[in-house]
């Protein structure tokens, strides 16, 4: 029972870290920034 509980805790912790990891990517990735910049530039060019 203890092993199952600790295993479950490990899984929950790892998932929480994965969520933080994805948010960090969205916040810091320069590729995301490039995408938003280019997307904005395209939108302003094609949408009056």
């Amino acid at each position, binding site marked *: 029972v203890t092993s199952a509980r600790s295993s479950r805790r*490990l899984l*929950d912790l790892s*998932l929480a*870290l994965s969520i933080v990891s994805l948010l960090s990517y*969205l916040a810091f990735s320069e590729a995301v920034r490039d995408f938003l910049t*280019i997307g904005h530039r395209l939108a302003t060019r094609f949408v009056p």
Partner: protein
Amino acid sequence: VIAALGLVLAVAAAIMTARRVAAGGSRAEGLAAGFIVGTALVVVPIQFGAALELLGLVPTLSLLPPAVASAMVVGWLRARSASGRPAPDPDPSPIGRVELAAGLIIGVPYFLFSLDRITGFPVTWDGVAYHLPLAVKWLQDGSLGIEGGANWRGSLPANAEIVAMMALGTGWQSLAEVSNLASAAGLGAGGYLIGRGIGASRSAAWAGVLLILSVPVVLYQTFSSYVDLFGTASLIAALGLIVRQRTRERSPLDAGVLAVAGLGCGLAIGTKPTFWVPAAIVAIAGLVRVRGVSVPGALAIYAGAVLAPALFWFGRALGTTGNPFYPVAVEIAGRTLLAGFRPSELVNPEYYLGLVRSPIEWLGYPWIEYKRAGYGWSPGSGLGPLFAALVPIGVIATLVQSRHRPVGPARLIPLLLLGGVVVVAVAWWLVGQGPHLRFALPMIAILCVMTTPWLTDVRVARPRIVAGLLLTGAVVFGKMASLDPAVRLASRIRHQTWSRDRFYGVPPLVDSLPACAAAVNFNPPREFWSNFALAGHRLTNRVIPPWEARDFLDGPPAGPCPIYVFDREPFLDASAEARLTSIGYRPLPLSEQPAWRAWVWPGR
């Protein structure tokens, strides 16, 4: 027509092999084996024909051998009835809806890139600079010979370029890049098989494949003539076949699978020197127990299969330069044993600093994706949102969890995989190379797959959170990755750049030069992207790349064929122009393409 026939028959042989292997295993095993066999049926017969040409036994290299070899294999497979039943799968549950939905989303940029490439021409950086020009040179020369000297790019092992040469030989030039879709499929199948081999459920193994396919380097290389994906796919498909069959009921390896896995390793070794160390590690992994064959027999099968697609390159280098590893120099303790180029001369050791500002920044690269120049994602940069979200944590969690697993493959193989990744990294360090992302593609694929045991558990424990992570990452990837091909397609429609000269922005004159004309790319060395464009629509122009242009023009023009010199904006200075005129070249008017200047020497 002969090239197209060879490719069609090789695909037919691959499909028949896949069906046969799938009949005794699984569809993924069939796909991995079919990819390796189909590719080998293109590469090995061409190498055989090229060896005959280099030995002087035939006057010129023909594109016919792949068609002959594939037809023989097709006939042989048709004559033998398939035996065996599919191996029982301990996890018969279907792949989950979330994973299928994520797969569809990730498939959108693959579809858009396919449309872009099919309606266009080869466009990727190193591909049009020297991989495809090398394939064009082989087609023009009817030989795979090398000259040695300073042109090391033309002296590397080049299995992927053989496939590109066959694709270009069909006359449909974009096939040279689109054909890499087969590599992506082979890589995905290999990744799936490794995942299943280390105990992942079907859905988790499929999620591992999605992780691999969502890496931007994999996506961009799929639609390029870079060779890293081709070698990685050969290697991972081979490893997948070995791991899957060995872990299924812990059975010994089938001799046929051993041979196919050996071919995969050999294809990778003959792709690029960066694969020599990882392929050696995978080759060792195959050398354990083999069913129904003695140890010497198994060794002979394996060694023969590994050498078949690789030996030609070492023999060619040995015969021409005396160094079988040419262009790589062999040095021990500072003494040069075999002359060539040091790794630092082939790839600048500081090349990696285009992706990180210091080596320590690699630890944060998946989240930062810094790039000094250009868009963050390319054939050599970017790991993507799903990798950042799931792989670093997933690999650590898999290793921690493995303590709780029973002793066996599911516990041992992830440790062995990680050990292999570390050995390759150390080997790189020893040869003085800084890390570079695309050279590490096999390791990136293995890290993705190593998350699958953890994904198996978290899918059951917290299905909604895993679904949210997978779908969010897939949507972010799908949107970001679709931008590039969507903009390209929109631009092509808007500017109507359907013809080759308009696509590349070169003078239409390039497509109508006389058959034996030389086209000198008279530009600074960094402007090498026109090398492929200047070959012309029929690929008959003999292009002199920028790094050879000065030497070529230093000598007086001679021979019966005309020489055209092309200079693209920003134009070279007036002294270069005056020199050309003094040698005897006369300027050509290019009113329809003001970004270019041209001169011609009409030949004798």
